[in-house]
């Protein structure tokens, strides 16, 4: 059963979505990671992604990062369109402009960091349903995005079967040693370092935690059949990313923005 939202409900969803996006962007501004703060980077990695090639051939990243004023205007507009998308919810012009700007920002951030990270993609993906001003079309797209969220987590589990990390008992220890060695060197007396040492001393327990994490992704298949357990899926997503952040320094908190599709925003019956 599709949940058809009314304009007031769409407004509320927009407040949360673009409010969340604004917080993320302000955090990025504080971190010195917006376009005008990049200090004119030189080395980029468009990789084998032809969409990146097109954007780079159009010279957009090079121009924005190479001209401070242009970068500043871009950053300002990105924040402005984010706020505008929340408040001017009856029109789709602000979400369209937000979507274009955040897309360019993601390409710039990923290309100049030399690694195309997925954690930032939620900021763009969540804007897709808002590209439609019609509330019925928005509701259908929002519902579609909910299925896509379930697909993302479940396919992540599927890849772990196909590639084999699900059956690789050393995976937990290897990822901790690879990702957390710098942390443990810099902060040997931190509580987290002790937790990590304990985890490495108990490989079976650690392996079990990793397998549980992977199985948590598998649970998202339920979302294809019923919405009854969406709050559990939302809880699992939060838990999964929290534990990943602490244990292996994989920060996917920004990505949680797309989990907002798992909430029931209806205040009235269809």
């Amino acid at each position, binding site marked *: 059963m599709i949940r058809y939202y009314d304009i007031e409900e769409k407004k509320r969803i927009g407040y949360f979505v673009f409010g969340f996006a604004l917080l993320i962007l302000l955090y990025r501004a504080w971190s*010195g990671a917006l376009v005008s*703060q*990049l200090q004119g980077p*030189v080395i980029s990695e468009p990789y*084998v992604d032809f969409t990146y090639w097109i954007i780079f051939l159009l010279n957009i990243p090079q121009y924005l990062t190479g001209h401070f004023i242009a970068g500043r205007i871009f950053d300002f507009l990105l924040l402005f369109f984010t706020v505008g998308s929340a408040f001017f919810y009856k029109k789709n012009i602000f979400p369209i402009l937000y979507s274009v700007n955040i897309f360019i920002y993601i390409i710039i951030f990923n290309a100049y960091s030399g690694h195309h990270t997925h954690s930032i993609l939620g900021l763009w993906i969540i804007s897709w349903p808002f590209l439609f001003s019609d509330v019925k079309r928005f509701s259908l797209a929002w519902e579609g995005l909910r299925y896509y969220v379930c697909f993302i987590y479940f396919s992540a589990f599927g890849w772990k079967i196909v590639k084999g990390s699900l059956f690789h008992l050393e995976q937990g220890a290897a990822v901790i040693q690879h990702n957390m060695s*710098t942390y*443990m060197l810099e902060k040997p007396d931190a509580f987290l370092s002790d937790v990590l040492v304990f985890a490495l001393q108990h490989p079976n327990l650690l392996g079990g935690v990793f397998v549980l994490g992977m199985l948590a992704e598998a649970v998202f298949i339920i979302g294809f059949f019923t919405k009854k357990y969406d709050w559990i899926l939302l809880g699992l997503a939060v838990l999964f990313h929290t534990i990943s952040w602490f244990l292996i320094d994989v920060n996917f908190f920004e990505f949680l923005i797309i989990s907002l599709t798992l909430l029931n925003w209806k205040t009235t019956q269809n």
Partner: protein
Amino acid sequence: MKTYFHHLYHADKKLFIIISLFSLGTGVMTILGDQVTPFYIWGMFSEPIPVRETYSKIQLEADGKPLEFYDLQAPNRHLLYGGVHFYKKIKDNKNTHPTRTFFRQKLGVHYNKVQPILENITCDSSDFEAAEEWIQRYLSYSISKDVKEWRAIHQEIRFNENNRPEVVSTQTILP
């Protein structure tokens, strides 16, 4: 039981086409194992990672003082260390951008068809000086201090019998 696509088809044919094409693209790319924006593959940490004797890390030094990696915020360190790592990767790849190498190997004699595009969108050794200047600029910006000299140090780290990491060797690799 009627599916989402069934509802979508009857409610909005245009949106049905858009979402079907996106789903199809995502499905095809997932099967092919490649990703092109917006058809992403969600396979992070799916490859088995072996436990190693030692792990390679890069430490940055600003005016003789080691930079604390975790004093920087995540997006900031992703850009700074990611940029340094990638620059090092290019230098290790005989001063050639890895994407150029990838296509040269993949396309063989047909490489010249994409060569002008790749030369347009990827850097080469003529950009190295500017790249090192950028590292210095962004490092200065990141720690809010005018850095006069910087170094990137390659560290080999191993885990001892108490499961604590220790540095077993260091080597200056950049600039």
